[in-house]
């Protein structure tokens, strides 16, 4: 599996400046990777282009999607239909062979007690988790998580990210977040999109790629390594 792109340029109609300007990079795949950068540099635009939501003439040639057939894109403002309980919704959209995975994710994501509630009754963090579960139980090769856990508390978010990495080692993830230390800790390759002309084209920085220890608990990040990774990311931005 391989993921990258060559000279991806994208300009919104009616705008002169391209949001992505000759973006070229190559990333380790499979793995838990990230796209990082300040607001407005084109993270979501890039994600939507990769997921097939944009129009770039030679997209097939620009993107390098070796071994990646099914791409899903999830974002934090998505909603589940409100006419039935969230649990019933998950049952309906769960592929036949993924029932066990669904049950396991419900436990890890701590949404079991709210399966009988409608989506609008959930807190924003619960809504984020419920939405992410329904993507994770689909068949996919690449899942783009655009701020998908933005409203979840830090401790649970860390637990969820480690679980995802543990349970989906053969899938590729692109995690979009503004949380620098989280991206530095959990992600393998981090595509940095910056505002300056130097970094418009993108740069990939190595993260710590933290995993759960064999007992399934959090391992404490090495402070120095984390600081170095964060500094490198900040310099690239």
């Amino acid at each position, binding site marked *: 599996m391989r993921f990258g792109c060559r000279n991806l340029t994208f300009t919104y109609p009616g705008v002169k400046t391209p949001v992505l300007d000759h973006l070229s990079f190559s990333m380790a795949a499979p793995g838990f990777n990230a796209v990082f950068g300040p607001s407005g540099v084109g993270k979501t635009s890039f994600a939507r282009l990769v*997921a097939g939501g944009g129009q770039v003439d030679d997209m097939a040639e620009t993107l390098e999607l070796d071994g990646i057939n099914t791409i*899903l*894109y*999830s*974002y934090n*403002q*998505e*909603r*589940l*239909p*409100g*006419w039935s*309980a969230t649990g019933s919704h998950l049952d309906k*959209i769960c592929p036949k062979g993924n029932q066990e995975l669904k049950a396991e994710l419900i436990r890890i994501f*701590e*949404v079991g*007690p*709210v*399966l*009988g*509630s*409608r989506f*609008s*009754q*959930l*807190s924003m963090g*619960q809504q984020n988790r419920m*939405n992410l579960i*329904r*993507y994770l139980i*689909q068949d996919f090769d690449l899942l783009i998580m655009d701020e998908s856990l933005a409203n979840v508390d830090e401790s649970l978010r860390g637990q969820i990210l480690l679980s995802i990495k543990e349970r989906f080692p053969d899938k590729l993830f692109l995690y979009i977040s503004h949380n620098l230390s989280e991206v530095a800790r959990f992600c393998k390759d981090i595509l940095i999109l910056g505002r300056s002309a130097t970094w418009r084209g993108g740069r990939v920085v190595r993260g710590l790629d933290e995993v759960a220890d064999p007992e399934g608990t959090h391992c404490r990040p090495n402070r120095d390594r984390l600081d170095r990774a964060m500094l490198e990311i900040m310099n690239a931005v």
Partner: protein
Amino acid sequence: MLFRRIYQFLIVYCLGVGLLLGVKYAAGLSDYVIPGPDLIAKTARAMASIYFFDGLNTLSVTILGQMISIAMAFSVGILGRKSSWAGSFIKVMAYNIQAYPIVALAPIIFILLGDGFLSRLLIASMICYFPLLLSVLGIMASPVKDIEHFYLATGRMRWQLEVKIRAFENLSKLITVISGSATLAMAGTIVAEFIAADAGIGYSIRIALYQSDLAKILTALFMIGILISVYQGLLETVGAQVKTKWSAPLGGELI
């Protein structure tokens, strides 16, 4: 909702009658031009039951006409929701026809179909159909991206699901539009009866007009107001119940 509609109508009606009486006494007009309270009450007692059944007759045509319009508006609205050639054609046609006063076509309908039930029904349907269609088209053609994205991305989207999502997300708007279209359908039916039909409250108003009997007209207007208020109130109550059923808490524990 039902009682609110009725008392709102009663307030407006009483204000209207009060204004008429004010003009009568201020200008010193005779009972022949504007009847006094005694004559209005006497006429109301005499005509109430007749006008009530005439009103029911009109209301039955209104309801049937509105139901036909709703069914047609939803069918065409669902078909025309896509930005395809057919969808664009339906939208443009609906916008243009909407701009034309449909009631002006009533004489043609009476010439072609004659006086009677069918003409009244057709005019009632036509008058409330186009505003309904435009609203349904507007709702059905607007994607609810935050919900639909998942189904599109995973290839699960079907037209039935798309319609269900958009209808659910715009339920309040749809209920308001359907409830509001009842007035249009009633107006259409009355206009049809007023022009050339041989039954209904509009026909009774026409007779009262030829007799220059304002007391009868005021009684007929009272019946129309009460009946349409009850009907709209019932529509809103049913709509509120549907909304409650679809969005009421189902339980579950928040963490």
